[in-house]
Each structure stands twice: as structure tokens, then as C-alpha cells.
């Protein structure tokens, strides 16, 4: 926000100048924005506990179905790859949360009639969305951690959990999902009804996370795939960040930056297109 100095004039004109100065100055910072988004999310979760708990329970139930169903069908084969499944499921729930945090929020805000209010924030719509994503990521991390603990408890599997390494790798791994979220969120601004794409994305994310990376280098250029590969490596073999191959880390950071950047840029472009067509407030 721009800053301004209040004049000390007197009378009506002076008062007006003082008020104008106050208006320019503002008192909020980016922290204010972040806190506002976080508080809103927490309030909604607190106010609707059943909805919140159901979401978490569905995560557990879904994994339970995969685990117990898979064990009944595949037996030893599933047990052999259990570590990979747990890491994959953890990453999938995180990526899906990050993707939905952006893409679905655009649709919801549009539906609620609040999208234009967010667009008119002096912080800029992009920053408002990034703050919203940051909150979504925090929520996703909390849910992911709970889901991971549940999975380990149910399966009795032991994974190495170097927390800092897992956290950093997870953030870079899901950054492309955030980029995809921005891209599809941008499409939602223009085309509005894109929920079916969102639904399909759940399966696309599974494919990206489970894509074979050994021996097929180009696959690692796909979003999330490299993150999935490194996260599995770190959690299954207990490797720390500095023990991972630098080239692999560079590829992880590169894909994260590119997919996030391209997705964000597309979101901005599609936002302009929506405003050209007068669609910003439509649903």
C-alpha cells in the first residue's frame, strides 16, 4: 500500500486532507492478510466441526479401503510396496488439498459473490490468492500429518521421518499442484463450471505420483512426479536433504518453480480475459 502524510490543515478542507492521509496510510500488512485468511478458515472449521471431521474421516476411510482391500486382493505384493503406498497416499492427499485450495476456492468465491471483493483488495488479487493458498497448505499439512500418523498406526509400517527434509520436499513436491490449481482456477474464472475437470484431476494426480521414474527421465519433468520420487526415497531410506543427489534436487526445484510460475501467470492472464468479457462476478 502506498503511504501518505496527513496534513495538519484546519476546517473542512483540513479535515478532508487528514482523512485522505489516513486512508492512504492504512494499517494492514501482508501479515494482516495472512492472519485474516487463516482466521476465516479456522472459524469455518470450528463453526462446522462435523464437516471438518467428516473430511478428515473420509481421508482415513479411503486409505483404510485401499489398505485392507488391497491386502485381501494382493496380499504380499501390497505389503512389499506398503512404504511407497503410504508415501504416495500422503503426497496425493497433500497435492489434492493444495490443488483444491486454489481451484475450488475461485469457484466458491464466485458462487458466494465475494470474488470481486477479493479482487478489489489493495494487496492485489494474486496476493490474496497466494495467502489463501498458504492457509490451504497449512491445513493440508496438518491433515496430511494426521493421515500419515493414522496410516502408520493402521499398517504397523515404520518410515523414516526426517521432519525438515520431509517438509521441504513436500512443499516443493506440491508446488506444481498449486500451479495446476491456479491454472484451473483461472479457467474457472472464464468458463465457470469446471468442476468435472477438478474431479478428473484427482485421478490425474494419482497417475503423476505413481508414474515410474526409474529409467524414464522425462517422466520426472511432469508435475509432482520428481517430488514423489524424492519423498519416497527420503521416507523409505531415511535420506536427509543434503544426502539426496543435487541434480535431483535441482530438478525438483526447477519443476516446482516452473509449474507454479506458469500456473500463476496463466491465472493472471485468464483473470484479465474474464474481466475483458465481464465475467468476473458471474457464476
Amino acid at each position, binding site marked *: *500500500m502506498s503511504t501518505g502524510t496527513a496534513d495538519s490543515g484546519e476546517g473542512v478542507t483540513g479535515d478532508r486532507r487528514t482523512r485522505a492521509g489516513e486512508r492512504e496510510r492504512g*494499517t*494492514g500488512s501482508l501479515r494482516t492478510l495472512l492472519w*485474516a485468511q487463516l482466521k476465516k478458515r479456522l472459524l469455518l472449521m470450528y463453526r462446522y466441526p462435523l464437516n471438518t471431521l467428516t473430511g478428515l474421516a473420509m481421508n482415513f476411510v479411503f486409505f483404510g479401503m485401499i489398505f485392507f482391500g488391497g491386502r485381501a486382493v494382493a496380499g504380499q505384493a501390497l505389503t512389499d510396496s506398503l512404504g511407497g503406498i503410504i508415501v504416495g497416499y500422503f503426497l496425493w492427499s497433500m497435492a489434492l488439498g493444495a490443488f483444491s485450495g486454489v481451484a475450488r476456492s475461485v469457484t466458491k468465491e464466485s458462487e458466494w*459473490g*465475494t470474488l470481486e*471483493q477479493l479482487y478489489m483488495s489493495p494487496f492485489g488479487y494474486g496476493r490474496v490468492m497466494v495467502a489463501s493458498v498458504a492457509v490451504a497448505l497449512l491445513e493440508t499439512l496438518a491433515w496430511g500429518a494426521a493421515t500419515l500418523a493414522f496410516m502408520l498406526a493402521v499398517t504397523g509400517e515404520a518410515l523414516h521421518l526426517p521432519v525438515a527434509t520431509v517438509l521441504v520436499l513436500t512443499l516443493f513436491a506440491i508446488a506444481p499442484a498449486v500451479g495446476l490449481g491456479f491454472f484451473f482456477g483461472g479457467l474457472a474464472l472464464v468458463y465457470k463450471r469446471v468442476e468435472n475437470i477438478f474431479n478428473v484431476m484427482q485421478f490425474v494426480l494419482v497417475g503423476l505420483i505413481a508414474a515410474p521414474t526409474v529409467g524414464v527421465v522425462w517422466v520426472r519433468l511432469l508435475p509432482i512426479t520428481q517430488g514423489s520420487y524424492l519423498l519416497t526415497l527420503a521416507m523409505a531410506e531415511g535420506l536427509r536433504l543434503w544426502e539426496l543427489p543435487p541434480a535431483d534436487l535441482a530438478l525438483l526445484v526447477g519443476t516446482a518453480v516452473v509449474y507454479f510460475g506458469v500456473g500463476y501467470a496463466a491465472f493472471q492472464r485468464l483473470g484479465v480475459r474474464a474481466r475483458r468479457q465481464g465475467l468476473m*462476478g458471474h457464476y
Partner: protein
Amino acid sequence: MTTAHDRVATDRTDATEDGNGPGAAETDPPLSVRGLSKTFGEGEEAVRAVDDVSLDVEPGTVVGVLGPNGAGKTTLIKSILGLVVADEGDVRLAGADVSDEPRAAYARVGAMLEGARNVYWRLTVRENLEYFAAIGGESPSAVDDRHDALLEQLSLAEKADETVNDLSRGQKQKVSLACALARNVEVAFLDEPTLGLDVESAVDLRREIRRLADQEDMTIVLSSHDMDVVQEVCDRVVIMADGEVIADDAVADLIDVFRTAAYRVVVGRAEVGAGADATPPDGTGAEVLDDDTRERLRETYGVGAFDDRGDRTAFEVSLGDPQRFYELMDALRAADLTVHAVESVDPDLEEVFLELTGGDGSSRASDAGRSGRAARADGGDRP
């Protein structure tokens, strides 16, 4: 009539004379629009939603944007706010160019665009205020007092801790207005602020809008179909039709243009004495005005419908030049008619609006000139 317009002009003169000459930011009106145009679609399906609109709005002024459905009111407001990208034109809001410096402009602007839908229904009233203050760049704790005052003024204080979902429609709408004003803003845009409100809520809203302009020097642009709201609350009215501004003037002046020479005239036959009734009770019998006289009144004075009631006939006539009133009186006497009553017809804003837009929403821009001011400058001729 002294309008906020005049008041501000006086304030500015004083400032200059005091030697506190206004800087560039002060000379910028809170809202300045130049040549704003927007077309949706292409080719034969293209719709010119906003057509070369220019206007300046001074501080503390409430401007009402009126127009029939599809006139371009909402597109104009959204184009001003940058929510719709205009094809041409410049907009400066609170001294900032909306295209080049949107964040600076938005720092001083609040808007209520979707009525009651503008807020989060699952948050409480106060939580909404705090949230919108925060995303508007203001720390909620810094505007606590403002929120208390807003809640009080909008009769929402007792509902502050209730979720919006549990409120009535009128209350939701008031929450929406409060959120648009949840921080210190210089300009507020209100799209149909009283739509669907009960009488009490509408009165609260009108009072608050007027107070904001008068006491906080806020510039307010509101669009509405409710003529009473515009007439009561606005200092100035912009009437749109087919994307164009067809009138732009102070409300009182605009009405005056139409008030100057509109009369309701009641005539009877000269040979029938006052109080006598030559017409049978069934209403049949000779009419007061013969066909030739009616035709002459239509052609010469633009009289529309005649209301025949026994020995009296009434008609309304609008005369651009007051001198023509005397000509009309002479013409009626020459036709052996007695004038029983002449009443000045005071139009309200609704009649002005219907006259300018052709009643069915079709513009009479070409007749009216580009503004009410133009119409008045032509000697008060009714467009």
C-alpha cells in the same frame, strides 16, 4: 438549492484563498471518468454496453446512476472499478489510475456489488467486518470503533455476533453495506443497495448513505431502480440508456427542467354556467371539446390524452416557454371554453426518468441532448 457540489466548490475556493493551495492529489476529484467505452461481443452481435461516458464526481457527493434494465449501469460501475476491462477511456479513482495503479485505487474504494451476496454468510457480522477490513489493507483492531459505529448506525449492533446466514435479507444487505465501508474509504460504489429491502431497512440504508456523504465527506456512486431512493438521497443523477449518459445533473435541477411548464388544465364550455351540468347523468351528450379543438391542442401544444368528465375536460400540457401558457389561455378562450382550473404539475424523478428514457427504456438522447444541463440551457424545453 445548495448541493454538496456547490459546498465542495466553496471549500476549495477557501483553501486556495487561504494560501493552503491544494496539491495535485487534492485537485483530483475522487472519481474522474473520461471517454469510457465497453463493447461486449463482436460483429452483428456486438453490444455497446458503455458508450463514451465521462464524468467527474466531487467529494461528499452522492451520485445516482439510473437507467432501464440493460442501460449499462452495472457495466459502467464495474468498468470504473476495473472489474470489467474497458475498451477505451481513463478512470481515476481517489487520484489513482485504475488500470495502472489498481492497488492504490482500491486502497481508498469500497464497493457493494452483489447485494446480500457480498459477504460470507457462515461468518458472524463482526467477523465479516474484520475480514473485509483486513483484506482491504486495514488492521481490524485499528478500525474497531468504526465497526461499532457502523453496527450502531445500521441497527445491527445486537446482531454483531450472529452468523449472517441467520439474519433477514434486509439485515444481510446492511451487513454487505457495512463490509464495503469496513475501513476508511474515500469513494463507495453501491449497486442496487436497497433492492428487496423492507421499508424500515431501506430507510436505515438511505439515512446511512446520506450521513456518510454529509459527515464523512464520502463520495458515493449508487445505482438503483428505486427513484425514491435516488430522489431522496442523491445530490446528482446520471441517467443512462443504451450505454450512453443521456442526462447528468443535480436531482433538483433535473426535476426543475421538467417542472417549469407542466400544467393540468380543466376546461368547460363557456356557455355552461359554473356549477350547472348540461350533461345527462349517464355522461352522454355533447363533449366539451370538439374534434377540431382537440386536434389543434394536440398539434400546437402537444397535448396528449383528454379526460372527459361530464361538463369538464381535463388535459395535461407541457410548455417549454412560460409565454406559451398565455397563448394557450387565449386559444382556449377563442374556442369558447372556460378555464376552471390550472394546476402546476410537479414531476418527480420517476417522471423525469420515464420522459428521458422514453418510458419503455428507449433512449431519447438525441432529443434530450447529452445532459439535463443542455436541456435547461435551451430554455427549459422539455426534451
